[in-house]
């Protein structure tokens, strides 16, 4: 995802002199390194200083530039949160804050590097949009929209690198603010955002094997403004809706979907899987840490009453 962000940013930045990237001692390699070489005045490294990273972006946006602030999600959101609130949101400026390693991507780096609450914090801010693509293609589309059309502060929540393509055969196109159906089915629907959409697809396969009915899978890439109508439509047209998110339950997609379910008088079963409300001192792979939080295909399929035995051939296609 970060590589596709970088290559897309380079491509757009080569054309648009308003695009500037401000990083805080963390930078995607590859295309951003080339951007730094080709456009040294539009690459700023503040060092280990995230507050000035946001403040600089605010001032530049007020002068007509389109800055992107970039570092690890915990440091792009938590450390300079008041600058994001006051400088970007209160002043309603078109600055994109990029958080790399959203969720528990940086599993072995420990809790200081786990952005488990970033979506709740960022979606609670007036004027802020929150976008969490599920794969490299969605990352490119989101970056393009943020660089060319967005007029307000935005948070782009990315994974790391090496995420698989999930959307090349998607039913719907990528449209900011719209729920995107990747697969159209009936009976059961999965709603997710970010790289864990992969788990939703795997679980949907299990549902298909067990019930004979293909399940719906949708990428809720725009968490704010959330497509409430699209979600209500899913809730009212399926018997069971499952939300999967790499985020704590408070203030995440699951809690929003529950609100929408109440407002739309939905009668489906609703099941939400999220990160646990605790700091887990566990040092394993990203997948292993997600499993510790209960976000693994085996645990979720068991919780949903699906038969795990059919899953083995589906994994890692």
């Amino acid at each position: 995802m970060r590589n596709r962000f970088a290559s897309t940013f380079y491509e757009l930045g080569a054309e648009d002199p308003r695009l500037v990237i401000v990083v805080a001692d963390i930078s995607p390699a590859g295309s951003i390194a080339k951007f730094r070489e080709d456009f040294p005045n539009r690459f700023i490294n503040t060092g280990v200083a995230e507050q000035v990273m946001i403040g600089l972006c605010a001032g530049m946006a007020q002068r007509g530039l389109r800055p992107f602030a970039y570092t690890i999600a915990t440091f792009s959101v938590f450390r300079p949160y008041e600058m994001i609130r006051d400088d970007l949101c209160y002043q309603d400026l078109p600055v994109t804050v990029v958080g790399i390693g959203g969720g528990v991507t940086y599993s072995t780096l420990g809790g200081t590097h786990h952005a488990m609450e970033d979506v709740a914090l960022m979606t609670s801010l007036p004027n802020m949009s929150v976008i969490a693509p599920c794969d490299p293609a969605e990352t490119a589309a989101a970056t393009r929209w943020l660089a060319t059309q967005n007029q307000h502060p935005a948070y782009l929540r990315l994974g790391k690198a090496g995420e698989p393509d999930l959307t090349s055969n998607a039913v719907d196109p990528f449209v900011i603010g719209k729920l995107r159906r990747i697969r159209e089915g009936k009976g059961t629907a999965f709603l997710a955002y970010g790289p864990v959409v992969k788990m939703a697809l795997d679980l949907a396969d299990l549902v298909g094997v067990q019930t004979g009915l293909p399940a719906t899978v949708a990428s809720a890439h725009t968490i704010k403004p959330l497509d409430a109508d699209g979600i209500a439509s899913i809730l009212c047209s399926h018997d069971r809706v499952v939300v999967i998110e790499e985020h704590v339950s408070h203030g995440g997609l699951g809690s929003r979907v529950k609100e929408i379910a109440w407002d739309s008088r939905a009668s489906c079963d609703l099941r939400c899987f999220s990160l646990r409300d605790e700091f887990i001192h566990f040092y394993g792979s990203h997948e292993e840490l997600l499993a510790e939080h209960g976000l693994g295909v085996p645990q979720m399929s068991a919780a949903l009453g699906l038969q795990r035995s059919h899953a083995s051939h589906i994994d890692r296609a």
Partner: protein
Amino acid sequence: MQNSFDVKLAQRRCRAYRRRILEISQKVTALHVAPAFSCMEIVDVIYHAFMRRAENGWFDDAFIMSKGHGVMTQYVILEDLGVLPAEQLNSYCTPSGKLGAHPDLGNPGIEASTGSLGHGLSIAAGMAYADRLQGFDRKTFVVLGDGEMQEGSIWEAVMMAPNLKLDNLVAFLDFNDYQGLGRTTETHPHFLPMSEKLCSFGWEAVDVDGHDSAALVDAVQNRTGERPLFLTCRTVKGKGVSYMIDAPIWHYRSPNKQEYEQALAELEDVESVSA
């Protein structure tokens, strides 16, 4: 920049501005009078000696009141310059008005929403950098408070501005030596020397009397101009009204009728003596 800055005229203006602030203070229960008075000459010099007027009546240069609680000073000057309508100032902090106790971007002449301390210098640096990148001939002026200098974000910006070679950025520190719970130099005994600290970070930095308009003008005009400029301006909180000086309560209190009359009399007296 104007070489012929009229100091006597500046003194008269600043007395009139202080009287106007006192006048407004009689309409609301709380107003940051003393912190506005300490930066009066500084902001007056910024607007009257350095800020170039744009064709639309606004400004080609930028000013950010990073110590947002000093904004009353900016309001009365913007009113005097015809940027801010008098009716807006008369409806300060009321439901029918648009002006609050801290600057709000979108109001005439306001370049940044401040109030939370430690934000203005980074924003100003971003503006100054963008101006240079786009070839705009514009300077950015910032007024900082001394309590504000304790924010870590200020020092992040202090480190960045020379890296970015922002010779179009000028920061004025309103060093009135008071903050919420007492004297700044007692809260932080090593607060001074300040200019040396800034110099060591790559700024051009000098000390100046923050109530001496001529000295303020000279300090900016005599700069070498290759680095961002930082002026540590020694000021007196509540300057102009005897009972407000060294009395922390006036950080956030409006004078009663009797106090108001006394303050006006003191400001009038000064005028007749120096006239």
